Structures are given as structure tokens and as C-alpha cells.
């Protein structure tokens, strides 16, 4: 075992360049076999990272995506935007099913209306009517207007900083108000969707109102958008499959400057496949101040210490390393409503550890320590620990109360008075009276 482990270590050291997903290496790519080679740079990049890629034609039945209610692959790439109807196990419903089984998905769209494009609505992405790709006449260039260079945001947590613009060809989408959406790449402000690909102008005007965006134009349109489901699966919607192509990767944006496509698609696949921006809560503990053992129940007004250990995934070493970078983490102490909501701050000198001390509310009940940290792009951190807060034990109350002195005085004085009375009564008892009593009793 040890030998085996050290062997693994050695292999790991040998292949330092590998960066792997935290969720598994198997990738299924659904793509027309003919087009498979168009994306060789992207696929080879994935292979180099250590992914195990399986190809499958859009209409093929095998290998199945979900078998016996268990997903067969950790990640799925759908590069078949033009196929009208995919195989039986790749219906929109089964894509949602995949996500709920924690499989990550990259979906490419096209200007054609397909089964997959109806799925976009479930993610509150609104697509323009069919046949309306994105186009832009700026900057002036020799390429057709539908091949658009898109500037990449300089500082996006998901992307390598300062990437050169990327080439894009495909449809834009407008974003609904679903908070689970993570916009990655927006359309250039001078671009718009137009009905050049066989669409109709009327339909586009219609759709403009529906999308709520005014015209299908401007930087509010998304081109590449991520979506993280509540159970942690990630899906990335890409407006056009060409962004992954070798052609665009090698194409120059301006003379001498290669486009950012290669790095860009690596970045978004890294995010989608749970390589980057992956956090987890290793453990949470709670105990009373000056103690270390966690209790099942606390007494009201106890001083409670709550600690969480959080680590982030490092794809380079494929290990989890303690992470102290969260500054806005909060802890809630909840019974129906949060009774206490406080900042859970990192502890200095102890990487990955967050801690807070607070006083339990003066209210008994079943409380939960709740961490509910949802930020765009980052793994959702959710933790809930149930404890009971109970009133003091019957002997846990203070014994002598200064407020009770009237009662103490009353009790003591009555006792003394009774004793004195008895003593005087007995002492003052004269013989005559005794006689009288004796007579009576007789």
C-alpha cells in the first residue's frame, strides 16, 4: 500500500503540469465525428491536463450518459449545436438530470433552433429567434461581420488576467434574473443580433421585447455564461462552438497578436470542470468557550465558539489547501429566522480556519448553525448543524438572589418567632393551667 502510494506520488511529481478536476477525469464529448478534428487544440489541452476523453456522435446511443441512474462521466461537452434532435439520452430533460447528478456540462449553441436551445430557457437565458447570430462591423476587418473579436474582461476571477480579445461566432443571449447565472463573456457594445442567417426581422423585434433588453444589441448580451446549480454542478453556455476551434485559436486579432481563444476556453473549461474556484468546508465544530468538546445542546446565554475550516482546490497539485481568503463569510444562528447573524472571520496564523464567538440567544429551541455562502462563480458553501438551546437545568439557576431577601427574612423571622413562642409557651406554663388542661382531656 505504502509502496503504491509513493509510486503514485512519484507519478504525480513527474507529471507536474497536470491539472485535474476535483470531480473526476472522464469527459464525454458529443460531436460529429467529422468535426472532431476542428477542436484538436482544445481537446489536446484537456488530454494534457489529464482528462480522459470519450467521443460520441450526436445520434449514437452509446456510451450512455446515465446508466442505472448513475452518471457514467464526470463531465459532458455538447458540441452538436446544429443537430436538431440528439440521441434519446441527451434530451433537454436528461441534461437537467445530468446536472442534478452533479455532472458538469459545456453546451454550445448555434443560430438554429434545436432541442438544446429550448433548454436555455430553463436556465433563464433568452435566445434570439432562430437565424439571428451576433454581428458587428467594428473594428474594421476583412472577416465577415459575424466573426467578432470580443474583448475579454481584464479581471474576471475565472479568467487569466489581461487576455487578448477572443474570436466569437454564434448567437448572443440575454440573461434573466436568475441569481445562479455567472456571466463570463459579454458581447461588445457595438455588436447586435441580426436576421442574416435566415431569420425574420419581425421575429427579432418581437423577441427584443420579450428579452426585456430593448434591442438585441449592446454589452448586456451574454456570449459565454456559466450557471452553477444549487447542488454544485456547473454548466457553461457558449453562444457558438467556433470559439473552441483551432481556426480561431490560431487566428490573429491584430497583427502579431494571437487571439486569446486557447487560454479562454481552457479557463472556462477549468471553471466548468471544477478546477478553479472550488472551495469546500472541511469541518465545522462548535463548543463552549473554555472547552473543546462539542455539545448536543447549549444553555441559553452560553458563550459559544463556532469554527469552520475551509479549503480550496489546487488543480496544480490536485490537493486541497487551507484557504483564508474569504472576507465576507457569515454565520447565522437560526431558529425559523436568524437570531444571530455575524461575520465569520479568518483566524490569523491558522490558515483555513474561521472562527467566531457569540452569546447564545436568551431563547430556547432548536437552532441551526448555518453557513450559506453563495457568490457568483465560487462553489456554494453550505453547512447546517442543528443543536438545541435549552433553559438552565433546575439546579443551574443562581442559588441566592439578593432580590429574594424579603422572603429569606420572612422565613427566618417566622422560624425564630415560632421557636421563641414555643419556648415562652412552655416556660410560662404554670401548674394550675396544666391541671386545668388535664381535667379537660379527661
Amino acid at each position, binding site marked *: 500500500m505504502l509502496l503504491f502510494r509513493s509510486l503514485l506520488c512519484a507519478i504525480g511529481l513527474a507529471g507536474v503540469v497536470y491539472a485535474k478536476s476535483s470531480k473526476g477525469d472522464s469527459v464525454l464529448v458529443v460531436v460529429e465525428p467529422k468535426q472532431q478534428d476542428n477542436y484538436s487544440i482544445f481537446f489536446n489541452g484537456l488530454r494534457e491536463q489529464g482528462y480522459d476523453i470519450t467521443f460520441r456522435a450526436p445520434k449514437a446511443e452509446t456510451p450512455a450518459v446515465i446508466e442505472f441512474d448513475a452518471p457514467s462521466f464526470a463531465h459532458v461537452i455538447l458540441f452538436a449545436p446544429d443537430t436538431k434532435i440528439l440521441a434519446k439520452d441527451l434530451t433537454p430533460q436528461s441534461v437537467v438530470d445530468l446536472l442534478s447528478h452533479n455532472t458538469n456540462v459545456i453546451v454550445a449553441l448555434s443560430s438554429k433552433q434545436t432541442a438544446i436551445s429550448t433548454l436555455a430557457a430553463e436556465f433563464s437565458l433568452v435566445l434570439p429567434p432562430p437565424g439571428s447570430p451576433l454581428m458587428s462591423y467594428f473594428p474594421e476587418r476583412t472577416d465577415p461581420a459575424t466573426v467578432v473579436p470580443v474583448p475579454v474582461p481584464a479581471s474576471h476571477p475565472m479568467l487569466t488576467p489581461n487576455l487578448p480579445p477572443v474570436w466569437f461566432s454564434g448567437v448572443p443571449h440575454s440573461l434573466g434574473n436568475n441569481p445562479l447565472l455567472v456571466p463570463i463573456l459579454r458581447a461588445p457594445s457595438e455588436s447586435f443580433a441580426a436576421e442574416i442567417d435566415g431569420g425574420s426581422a419581425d421575429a427579432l423585434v*418581437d423577441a427584443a421585447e420579450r428579452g426585456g433588453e430593448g434591442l438585441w444589441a449592446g454589452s448586456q448580451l451574454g456570449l459565454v455564461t456559466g450557471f452553477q446549480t444549487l447542488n454544485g454542478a456547473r454548466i457553461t453556455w457558449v453562444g457558438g462552438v467556433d470559439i473552441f476551434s483551432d481556426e480561431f485559436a490560431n487566428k490573429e486579432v491584430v497583427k502579431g497578436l494571437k487571439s486569446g481563444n486557447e487560454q479562454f476556453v481552457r479557463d472556462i473549461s477549468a471553471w466548468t470542470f471544477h478546477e478553479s474556484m472550488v472551495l469546500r468546508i472541511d469541518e465545522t465544530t462548535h463548543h463552549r468557550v473554555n472547552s473543546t468538546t462539542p455539545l448536543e445542546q447549549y444553555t441559553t446565554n452560553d458563550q459559544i465558539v463556532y469554527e469552520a475550516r475551509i479549503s480550496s482546490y489546487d488543480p496544480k497539485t490536485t490537493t486541497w489547501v487551507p484557504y483564508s481568503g474569504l472576507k465576507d463569510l457569515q454565520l447565522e444562528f437560526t*431558529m425559523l429566522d436568524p437570531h444571530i447573524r455575524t461575520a465569520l472571520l479568518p483566524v490569523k496564523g491558522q490558515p483555513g480556519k474561521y472562527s467566531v464567538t457569540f452569546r447564545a440567544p436568551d431563547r430556547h429551541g*432548536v437552532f441551526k448553525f448555518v453557513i450559506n455562502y453563495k457568490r457568483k462563480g465560487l462553489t456554494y458553501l453550505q453547512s447546517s448543524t442543528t443543536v438545541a438551546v435549552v*433553559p438552565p437545568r433546575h439546579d443551574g439557576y443562581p442559588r441566592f438572589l439578593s432580590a429574594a431577601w424579603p422572603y429569606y427574612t420572612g422565613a427566618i423571622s417566622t422560624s425564630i418567632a415560632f421557636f421563641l413562642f414555643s419556648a415562652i409557651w412552655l416556660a410560662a406554663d404554670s401548674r394550675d393551667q396544666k391541671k386545668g388542661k388535664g381535667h379537660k382531656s379527661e
Partner: protein
Amino acid sequence: MPEAYPLPSNLSSATVTNTASLLRIVTLALISGAAIASRLFAVINFESIIHEFDPWFNYRATRVLATKGFYEFWNWFDPTAWYPLGRVVGGTVYPGLMATSGVIYNLLHALNLPVDIRNVCVLLAPGFSALTAWATYMFTKEMKDPSAGLLAAAFIGIVPGYISRSVAGSYDNEAIAIFLLMFTFYCWIKALKQGSALFGTVAAVFYFYMVAAWGGYVFITNMIPLHALVLILMGRFSNRLYAAYSSWYAIGTLASMQVPFVGFQPVKTSEHMAALAVFGLLQIVAFAQLVRSHVSSQQFQKLLFIGVVAIGILGAAAFGIMTLKGWIAPWTGRFYSLWDTGYAKKYIPIIASVSEHQPTAWPSFFMDLQFLIFLFPAGVVVCFRQLRDEHLFVIIYAVMASYFAGVMVRLMLTLTPVVCVASAVALSTLLDTYIDPTEPEINDDTVSESGASTASAPAPGANGTSHPTTPKKTKKAVPPPQSTSALGQIIAASRSSNNKPRPKGIFGADTRLMVVFNAMCLLAFFVFHCTWVTSSAYSSPSVVLASTNPDGSQHIIDDFREAYYWLRQNTQEDSVVLSWWDYGYQIAGMADRPTLVDNNTWNNTHIATVGKVMASSEEVAYPILRKHDVQYILVIFGGLLGYSGDDINKFLWMVRIAQGIWPDEVQEPSFFTPRGEYKVDDQASPTMRNSMMYKMSYYRFAELFGGNAATDRVRQQQLPKVGPTLDYVDEAFTSENWIVRIYEVKKEDPLGRDHKSANAFSQGKKRKRTKPAQRRRAIL
């Protein structure tokens, strides 16, 4: 003196006494045996199981007490009840019952008798019923004589009114409380008769036990002061009364305050004020007596006047200020509903919704008491004939308990003992009169009169205060106890003696035989009736239902336990189950899962929340369910089997209770058809059909009938062909006869959609977008 039949005369009085006492002991033992045996129907017909609802909590608490000890029990905080509020059980129970079984359990184990705690709990009530018979014997003995006592003991031993709360398995507070009630009263009467501080103290100790055992202790708290007050008002104040009452009140109140649940109530709440006031009054009266014996009568008059005025003003002012300041709690709603039977229905539906809080139906008096209910007034009249202090007690008790029994079904229980006592006194007087062999002498007036008075009042009290009864008075009082066959005779006799007092009595053995035979028949029928009622009506555990197969054999319907065990074995230990509060204790006891509400209905808002969930549509209910961490919903549905105690029949109470808190969101009228009918068929109102309760009850019900019209057998209505659909919950379990249906609340949709559209999507329905598109097309 002539005799109707000869009596053996060669017996020494010691032999007679000894034989009589032996017979009494044997009879009492037999009565105890009968009392226990008739309560075992439930165990024989079904099994040794805890019954109904509240007993399940008591049983669970007793198990905690038996396994963890008394101190842990006292500090017990139950996080699984009233989730997430929790319940401080140690401070909110009457621990007497659990402590009693705990002591018995430990005692048996100390004797190396490894009895299961469940069996101790199941058989506690029958055991205590034997003690109740004994206590009633002692009590009635003080009223009349041991033979009346034996009759009373026999009555209380088998009377259905008491059996209904004390069959084996009915492990409730009342099981021991009636014994404590009777014994406390006995001690009080004894203390009053003898002026004994010792018996006063014993009464106080049993009063404390009673306080620890049952909320009905308030009955004692008010009965004894009332008795004392009436005695004072009737000018019967004596040092005996003073000693008895003071010792009882002082020790009893201090002791009762040791029960955590009672705490400072005895000095704070209005229910207990009467006892305090009478205590104060007694001190004043006693002081006045003392002063009167020391000063002249004229001075005393003045003093009395000033004193009464001053104390009156002071007392009223103090009471007013304290009520105003809130130191004395006002009367609780439960108490108001005792005086105004419509009060609860208007203001506190939660109290009115309990079936045992409903006014009693007349037939149930006969059902529960049979011929005792007819003898009862006669017994009260017999009490009036002598009107000693203790007779007053029975009279007051009879009046109060009759009223309360008429107001609330459950208070039939407090009426039953006094009915038994009074009936026993009446019947025993009758038998005394007719078995006594002495015949009146017609010729000699003086002798016959004395003979008659001894016959009619066989146990004349040595009490000086009792008024000498004139023969006329005696006659007026006599008729009621003598039953119908003797009535004509009596009337004739009373007519003939209109003008001058005439000797009276019964001639001959045949008359005697007739009346006695008649009485014996009544008693025999009573026994048959009691046995029948006990076996057929009061022995069902209600956890297990029974029906009869076509061939007459018994068929057990065990849906409740099936469902509860399903929960126990198939769900997470901390998954919260929502159900109507009736089933809270059973879920906690049998399924061992946290519940939102249970039969300890202390938090009206929480219950109303559950009512709102049941009464609203899925969209409204879902956020509430999620907020309360509910994972399973349990509903009781009797439509398939015709089980009428199901949730749809209780539904209107849920609506009413929810309406009390959210009058804007839940409205009772919207659950009725336009014609004001409560229906579940095609004509049911939309609100009704969209409510969670309706949907969960009838989900997939129509499929059972394979295309035929589905019929609800409880309400005898045909259901729509297309049943309701559910989006936010999944059906998780339905028991064999569909009585219990359990639904699982879905988790939030991973894509953040609402479940309705998520469901529509997964069923392949096309998503509808917003309207502008259609408008434009219409123009085209």
C-alpha cells in the same frame, strides 16, 4: 316489636362484627378484581398496547424517566417536539403519572421482577381503579355506612364513565387522578369531621400528588374552599373546620408550588384565588370568634361593623390593583369556555376543535352511568335529609360536577364518582329500609314513631349541628329513593297521613321481597350494561382499528402502525414530519421523528401555521414547509375505508384555526360551495380543490377505481374523474387501506425554478413565455 322475618338471635355481637368486617374485606377484594378484570378487554381483544394520543406521550416520557432517572427527566428538553421551538418537558408536564410508573417499575426491578415498562404503563390504570374503588368505599363510609361504601365501590369499579378513561393501555393522567381525587376528598371529610390537623395534612399530601398528576386538581382547589365557604355562611363555623382547612391549605399550597409546571400559579392566577380568599376569611372569622369571647356583645357589634367594612374595602382594593398590575393572571380561555359554551367556538377554535371539549350529549349520560343517573338525585335528596357537614360536600360536589359534565364531555369523569357515591347512598337507604325486618306497631303511637325514625335514618350522626328531622320532612324526602314499584304504596301512605303524623314502615315479607328483587334486577342489568359498554365502546386502542369479516371473525386494520414504522425505518432520524396535531404524540412515540405540532396544544400560532399549510395552495405552502425544515407530510384519509375520523373531516377546524391568525389569507367561507355545503366532489370550491389537504388526500385516488367513478365512503360523494396533481411534494408512502398517506417535500429545484414549471418541463410541456408575442400575432 314485630318482625317481618326472623333473625338469628344466638349470635354474639362480636361475631357479627367480625363476620361483617371479613365480608367487607372479601367484597372489596372481589370488587377490585372485577374493576381490574373488566378493564382488560382491551388487552384481550387487541394486545398490550398504549392507546390513543396523549398516552403515547406519557409513555414516551415514562421511558425517559425509567431509563435516565428522575433528574434527567426533570431537566428534559425535547428538541423533537414543536420543531423548531422545542418543548421544556420537565417544566410543562404533570409528572405524577410518570413518577408513579417509574417508582413501580423500579420497585419491581428491585424485587427482581423484570417487567417491561410498557406493561407497567398499560396496567397502571386498571391497578389504580382498584384503589379508586377502595377510596370511594372510604369516602362513602363517611357519608353513610360501610354497606353504602361497598355499593359505591362496586359502582365506581365498573361504571363506564370511569372505565372510559382507565382501560388497560389508557395511560393518561386521569388514570391515577380519580383515585387521588377521591382519597383527597375522603381525607378532607375525615379532617373536617374530627378537626384533625393530621388528616388535613394527609389531604394536603394527596392534594400535592393530585397537583403533580392532573390539571384537574383545580377542581379540588375550588371544591374544598367552596365547601368551607358554604359551611361558614350556614353558620357552621367550628374549630374543626378551621384546623382542617388551614392545615390543608397551607401545606397543600406550599407543596403544590413545588411542581415546576404549577410554580407560582397558586398565588397568582384567578383559579386559585378562591382558596386563598376562603383561607383569609377563615382567619377573620376565627379571629372574630376569639374577640367575641373576650369582649361584650355591644362592643363586638361595633368592632364587627368596622372590621367588615375595612377588610372589605382593603380586599377589594388589593384585588383590583393586583389584577390591574397583572400580578393576578386573568381567567384563561379554557375557564371561560366552562361558563359560556359558545365562547371557545368564537374565540379559541383550538379548544373547541377537541372532541372531548364538546358539550355532552344526553344519551352519553345514560351510556356512561346507566341507572345511576336516575338514582343520583335521590341520593342527593337523602343527603339533604341529614345535612351533616360532609353531606353538604356531596351536595355541592353533585351540583358543580353536574354542571361541568353538561358543558364538557371529558368532565363526565369528575361527575362519575359523586354519582356513584350518591346513588350508593340512595340505594343503600332503600335496601336498609326494606331489608330491615322491623315492622311498625299500629296501636302504640310513640313506639312506632321512634321505630320509624330509626328505620329511615339508620345511621344518625352524633353531630350536634344536624337539625332534628320532623316526620313530615322525612316523608317528603323519602319518595324519590324508593323505586317505581314502591311508589304507589308510598303515595298512598303519605296521602293517608295527611293530617296527623302516623306511624310508618313496611309490613310483610312480600313487599320487601318485591322491592329488593327489583333493586337486584337493576344492579344485574347495570353489570351487564357496564360489561357490554366496556367491551364494545371503550376498549378500542384507536391506534389499531377492528372490523368484522363477513364470517364474523375480527379483522385488524393496522394502518397507523404500518405507516409509523415505515417512517421509523425509511427516513432520516432528524427528518421533520408535519401532520395535524392529533397525531403528534403518536408520531413521536411510534415513529420517533420530530413533529411540528402535537397534542400538547400550547402554541396556537404554530398549530395555525400547520393549518395554513394544509389549507393553502402548494405555492403558498411550500416556502412555509421549507422554512420549517419539513421533510414529510402525513395525512389521514378515510375515504377508501370509511374511517370517519380523517383529516378531511377535521379540515374545517384547521381552516378556522388558521383563519384566526391569518384572516386575510385563509377564509372559511371559500371552502364551501356557493350553496354553503362542504363538498369534495365536482362542486367543491376551487380553494378547496387547490388546498394541500384536498390534494394530498385524493391524489391518485381516482386511479383505484379503474375508470369508474371514485367514491369517498366517508362523505358519500363522487369524486371528479381527474384527480389532483402535485408539484411540490412526492407521494412517499400510502398504507394498506389508504388511511395514512405520507408525502415527501421536494428539495429546491437545482436550477432555481419553481417546482410547477420544473415539473412541466420534465413532463415535456412547452414553456410559456410572457404575453407580448401573442398580442402581436393577434394583430397580424
